[in-house]
């Protein structure tokens, strides 16, 4: 068995010996320069290390080195009951917390056959679409900031704050919400929720126009993004790229339409696509996606049904508080669920949802016990990051910053 000391880390020993197969012949001869970009670099959007082989300013090879933010979430989740493990799903992709909650709960619901009330499903859709907007706002702000458009960043974070305030209103937390629970929601939304969302919906389309006035036709932005990092549809499919990156390459694939979940089939919205496949196309697609998200939230809010927000199945969902003082069964279920947790039947499920970055999937294997036997997260950031070496080849170092931005990676999602 190889011990840690004996094991060779090809990218860490500082010499070229372990990675001659990764760089070009010229690097070995000393013609080109090897440069570390990151892990502590502001434009890598986290702790991503890129080992670059440069000829002047041109990138010959780009080797992403991931894992600096590895927290062992998947393994940690196996050590907790299904309910307790959910808090860790918040912490994978920290710009899409509710989306992570949703996919995790959908997987448990599929495994156990748990029913979800329609009101809970509609609120889930509203919140997840708001989360998509907030995630795209962070992407837009940081992407523009990387390309030296600072004011966009400030405006984006101003609007994101409104969404985070709505999350605080419903769940008590701005980011680590854990609001979507197996079998429904934590609690019903408060009374002021509808008005707050409506206010946001009213103000937001105008704000998108403002961002667009700063970027869409701005010659400096166009020069930095048009024709940069072109990905063909074939390449995108080959690399397992999903989400806006795939749609910018021309394929209208969206899990909200392809495999509707949480009642997405009731809503009328378009899948924005673009044929260019470059950085600018991805910008256009994401901007349009924000508009479509508003459309979905508007529809879901207009026909928000009344009713319960959590399943009545006491084997999986803790009873309401008012029952605890009157029903012995309720006390037993309450104690049982919060200590031992529930035990889903044996089996394995895979559920994928459309996260702001692409297909976010969770594979859940149950051995019939109270803890998941295995959880695997199919995270879109990781898949999308894979294409970076291909896109970076032949471009300038300064353009690499735009390419990292356009992939919209979250390192918590990449390394998990």
């Amino acid at each position: 068995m190889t011990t840690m000391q004996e094991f060779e880390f090809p990218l860490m020993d500082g010499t070229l010996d372990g990675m001659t197969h990764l760089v070009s012949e010229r690097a070995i001869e000393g013609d080109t320069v090897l440069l570390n970009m990151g892990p502590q670099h502001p434009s890598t959007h986290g702790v991503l290390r890129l080992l670059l082989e440069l000829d002047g300013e041109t990138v010959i090879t780009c080797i992403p080195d991931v894992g600096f933010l590895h927290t062992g979430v998947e393994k940690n989740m196996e050590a907790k009951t299904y309910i307790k493990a959910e808090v860790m799903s918040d912490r994978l992709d920290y710009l899409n917390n509710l989306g992570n909650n949703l996919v995790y709960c959908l997987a448990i619901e599929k495994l156990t056959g748990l029913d979800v009330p329609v009101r809970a499903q509609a609120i889930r859709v509203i919140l997840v679409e708001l989360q998509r907007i907030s995630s795209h706002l962070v992407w837009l702000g940081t992407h523009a900031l990387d390309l030296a458009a600072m004011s966009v960043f400030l405006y984006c974070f101003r609007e994101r704050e409104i969404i985070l305030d709505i999350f605080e209103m419903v769940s008590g937390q701005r980011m680590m919400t854990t609001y979507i629970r197996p079998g429904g929601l934590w609690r019903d939304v408060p009374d002021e929720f509808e008005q707050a969302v409506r206010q946001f919906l009213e103000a937001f389309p105008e704000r998108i126009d403002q961002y667009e006035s700063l970027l869409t036709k701005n010659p400096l932005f166009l020069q930095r993004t048009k024709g940069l990092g072109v990905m063909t549809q074939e390449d995108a499919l080959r690399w397992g790229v999903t989400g806006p990156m795939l749609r910018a390459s021309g394929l209208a694939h969206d899990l909200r339409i392809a495999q509707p979940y949480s009642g997405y089939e009731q809503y009328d919205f378009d899948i924005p696509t673009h044929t260019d496949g470059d950085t600018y196309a991805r910008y256009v697609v994401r901007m349009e996606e924000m508009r479509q998200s508003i459309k979905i939230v508007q529809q879901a809010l207009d026909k928000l049904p009344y009713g319960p927000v959590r399943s009545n199945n006491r084997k999986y969902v803790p009873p309401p508080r008012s029952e605890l003082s009157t029903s012995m069964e309720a006390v037993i279920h309450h104690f049982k669920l919060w200590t031992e947790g529930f035990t889903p039947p044996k089996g394995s499920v895979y559920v994928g949802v459309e996260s702001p970055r692409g297909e976010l999937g969770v594979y859940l294997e149950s051995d019939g016990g109270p803890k998941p036997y295995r959880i695997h997260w199919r995270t879109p950031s990781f898949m999308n990051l894979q294409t970076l070496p291909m896109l970076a080849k032949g471009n300038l170092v300064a353009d690499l910053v735009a390419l990292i931005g356009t992939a919209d990676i979250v390192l918590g999602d990449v390394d998990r």
Partner: protein
Amino acid sequence: MAGIIGEILRGLSTTLHMAATKPVTIQYPEVKRPVRPRFKGRHHLMRYDNGMEKCIGCSLCSAACPADAIFVEAAENTDEERYSPGERYARVYEINMLRCIFCGYCEDACPTEAIVLGDNYELSFTDRRSSIYAKEMLLVPVDEGGKPTPQKVEPGIYTRSIPVMQDPKD
């Protein structure tokens, strides 16, 4: 060329327009943003109106905690020295605020509404030891008209551990 300058001017007009609007930022810490009613901040251990502690030392919060941040040690109540209704009370109740992730599972799990998450988010410590909040720090002060615990009570009154509760409203 004219188009390029026009587009730059269009962006500039947006920024200038924004510069004239009221700022949305607040001057923390001088000004504080009020939190929402559901906000999950630092915990409180609640009391009944008569000053009796709600916590019955069942350790369910500790069992429900995903971060293993709570430690509870229960002891027996007597009518001479009564801390809480029912048989037992929490002799030791500690929350490690460095471990706590403020998910609110303890509040959900508590069968007597004893532990609730409050509004305080300004938690800072100078060492690890002071991050452990003991029972005295978490317990809310006794209301007017209540008596501090332990109380001396008549036998046979406080036999029920779980009170009558409503579903959360806010």
